[in-house]
């Protein structure tokens, strides 16, 4: 492309950013032409949010040491160090979580902070903050903005009680109402919308861009990108992968670009695989399984996990993969039929999964996984004590804590899993992420489960601990025949240990893949291009 002919409304070049020594952006560029819809794509953690935070001059960037690289708006280099500056430059954002005040009317929400006012007696005495509001003019402006995006709604209605789809449009109307808006960022706008609402949103985006406003469209959904975008930038692991014109590319290529990476062996195959996995020997069967977990809704899944296999569950954040184990363990309201080794699980009875010999290592280590102030010993033996009545001794009529047995077991676990600590009395909260994870794992194993759910086993832990945890899971599976279900956002890690991988998209099963299936297959499944639950053999 000839750079001299092209004019860009926004040019970000060689952007690099470090958070506490962790490089999250490595020389990324983003070029946007006026009036185009530009899709910004990448997996979770690819660096999209960080890039947008830089564009908006968010405090989180500048309080952690700023960033490297240059930003040009309309061909002029600029320093955006506060969100206010970004606003002045005509950069607007439609948030994923609505930033609206429920008790205010549509007009007030659109105009809040930028009210139109006229002087009166009080304001002459006490200053501008006492001026009267020009509601007529404000309503006219609100109407105009609403009309632009084609939303049929009275501007005097209160926000509270409006459907979610409307709120999104009001957010957009507010951004449009700002004078001189040049770039509008949509951060996964369709994630919370129904299909018809999403359709209308895409239509509104086209209208907005036709007025010369450039749109940066962050989304995971490939079909939407193909439908509205003019061009796209793909990020992967903080690196710039490609900038493509939509007309020059296709779904398969985009999917490949998003996922594509060399397969790294995370696990040494030192252990002989003597397992026999039969298709009719089912450890866990889910039928029409639904979980109401905020942000990770499962909306109806049929799935069979065979006894003795390592089963991976992948998918993007917020698509519902985490809801699956949390629902089974009774942490969130679940319905449908769940069978463990052929026995139906009572989903309304707390702890029923534990009684069926299912153990769970939570993705939320600090929130759910650990008693941070309690000792490692307490953390390891707690569940087994409560569920199986282990580490207790009778004293008169009460079951008392058997400190000696607990200590012995905890010490054994610390040794087997190589938990680095000053001793089993150390509070779990004082350990590093990787060691905390091992404590969680130790607790689950103390339950001596048939089925082990491990959710995000390697989140926030270093590569060495990662390898050890994954290898240990593989070892448990090979040597003890434990059925292991790994739920993870890291596709690479799933592909390195699992026998089969289910991809969850939109709360439903997109498909079940083999670890050596093509990158494109994984990419397409994760981007919601495949619906229904076919097994890809």
């Amino acid at each position: 492309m000839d750079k001299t002919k092209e004019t860009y409304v926004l040019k970000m070049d060689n952007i690099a950013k470090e958070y506490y020594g962790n490089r999250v952006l490595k020389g990324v560029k983003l070029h946007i032409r006026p009036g185009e819809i530009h899709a910004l794509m990448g997996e979770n953690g690819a660096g999209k949010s960080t890039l947008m935070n830089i564009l908006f001059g968010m405090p989180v960037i500048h309080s952690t040491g700023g960033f490297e690289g240059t930003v040009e708006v309309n061909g002029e280099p600029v320093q955006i160090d506060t969100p206010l500056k970004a606003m002045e430059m005509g950069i607007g954002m439609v948030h994923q979580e609505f930033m609206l005040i429920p008790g205010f009317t549509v007009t007030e929400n659109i105009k809040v902070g930028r009210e139109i006012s006229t002087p009166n007696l009080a304001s002459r005495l006490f200053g501008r903050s006492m001026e009267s509001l020009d509601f007529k003019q404000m309503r006219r402006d609100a109407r105009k903005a609403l009309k632009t995006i084609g939303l049929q709604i009275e501007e005097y209605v209160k926000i509270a009680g409006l459907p979610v789809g409307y709120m999104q449009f009001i957010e957009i109307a507010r951004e449009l109402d700002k004078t001189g808006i040049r770039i509008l960022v949509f951060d996964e706008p369709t994630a919370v919308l129904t299909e018809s609402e999403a359709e209308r949103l895409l239509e509104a985006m086209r209208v907005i861009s036709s007025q010369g406003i450039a749109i940066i469209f962050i989304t995971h959904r490939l079909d939407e990108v193909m439908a509205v975008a003019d061009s796209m930038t793909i990020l992967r692991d903080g690196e710039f992968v490609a900038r493509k014109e939509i007309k020059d590319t296709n779904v398969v290529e985009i999917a490949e670009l998003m996922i594509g990476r060399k397969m790294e062996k995370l696990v040494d195959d030192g252990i002989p695989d003597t397992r026999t996995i039969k298709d009719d020997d089912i450890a866990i069967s889910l039928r029409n399984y639904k979980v109401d977990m905020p942000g990770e809704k499962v909306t109806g899944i049929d799935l069979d996990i065979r006894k003795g296999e390592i089963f991976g569950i992948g998918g993007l954040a917020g698509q519902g993969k985490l809801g699956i184990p949390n629902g089974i363990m009774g942490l969130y309201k679940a319905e449908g039929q769940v069978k463990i080794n052929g026995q139906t699980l009572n989903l309304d009875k707390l702890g029923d999964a534990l009684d069926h010999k299912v153990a769970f290592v939570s993705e939320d280590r600090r929130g759910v996984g650990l008693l941070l102030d309690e000792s490692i010993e307490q953390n390891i033996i707690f569940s087994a004590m409560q569920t199986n009545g282990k580490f207790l001794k009778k004293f008169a009529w009460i079951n008392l804590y058997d400190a000696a047995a607990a200590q012995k077991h905890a010490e054994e676990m610390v040794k087997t899993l190589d938990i680095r600590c000053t001793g089993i009395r150390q509070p779990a909260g004082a350990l590093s992420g990787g060691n905390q994870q091992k404590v969680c794992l130790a607790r689950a194993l103390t339950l001596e489960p048939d089925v082990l759910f491990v959710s995000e086993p390697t989140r926030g832990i270093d590569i060495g601990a990662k390898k050890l945890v994954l290898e240990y899971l593989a070892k448990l599976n090979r040597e003890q025949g434990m059925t292991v279900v790994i739920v993870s956002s890291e596709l690479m890690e799933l592909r390195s240990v699992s026998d089969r991988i289910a991809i969850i998209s939109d709360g439903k099963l997109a498909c079940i893949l083999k670890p050596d299936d093509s990158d494109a297959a994984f990419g397409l499944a994760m981007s919601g291009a495949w619906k229904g639950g076919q097994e890809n053999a």
Partner: protein
Amino acid sequence: MRNPFKPLIAKFGLPRVIIVSFFLFLVAAAGGFHMNLMQLLSDCLRRWGMFGILALAMVPAVQCGIGLNFGISMGIVGGLLGGLIVIQLQIAQKPALVAIHPLFAMWVAILVAILIGVALATVIGYLYGQLLNRVKGSEMTVTTYVGFSIIAFMNMWWMLLPFSDGELIWPNAGKGLRNTISLASSYSNVMNKTLAFNIGNLTIPTGLLLFFFFMCFLVWLFMRSKTGIAMSAAGANPMFAKAAGINVNKMRLIGTTLSTVLAAVGILVYAQGFGFMQLYNGPMMMGFTSVAAVLIGGASPKRARIPHVLIGTFLFQGILALGLPVANQFIPESNLSEVARLIISNGIIIYALSQVKGGNGRE
């Protein structure tokens, strides 16, 4: 500049360092004024045993996750009713019991009072726990007002309940229960006197302290039982407990009930040591003194242990016991001691509440 005492102070807690210094200062001052130090220390010990169980009531409440239970007046009311019933039945004067030993009759009286109090407090505590399970996140505010409300509510009932014993109702055939009821004819000082002995001028109320330690032992035992550990986990991290299949609401109910029951026992032990039962607005601020005591001992709204109760009650009551006579030496005829009590008890509550890290309560 490095201060070698810094880590030590951090571990012990600055407020405790100040309180201990203040306590030592009072002891020194009392010595300086040539007061009867031994008698003052006897008073400390007596008050330690008297107030201890009320402070102990905070342990299950804090550990099960409802936080500091300002509403122990719920249990106090149950205990007071037990005490009233025993006086009405004149158990301490039953000839058959007195014949064995007068002290034995008094012990029977207070134990029956405790039994009735515990039974009533169990029912009250269960209902109270149900209420607290419905107001998660603002328990401390709610307990404060529930505590005040029950006092006001019982103010009506103290007038209406059909007690008829002359010791209980207003004299001259009046109606309603008295404000302050003497226990001289029932179980006044029964624990204090049991096995009490003197070392010089220092009186050791052995029975009282043994009973207090025994209650502490029972609670300690419970906290080490399967249910007790589950309860602590439910209080520390409800989601963690839930993941281990523990019914968090049930655990909170157990903790609240236990706290209420301990309060019922506590008020009877307090009353026997004091020699009087106080009705109407008497127990209004009991919750605050108990909370302050356990906080001084090093507890937080998230964590309270038996040593916190032992240390805290001793320091808090010790300062009150020494404070009044010493203050009177400084400024005769003043109520400086009362002012000091208010400053210490309310100050320490504010300090502790300001230490709570918000935003991690989730379920």
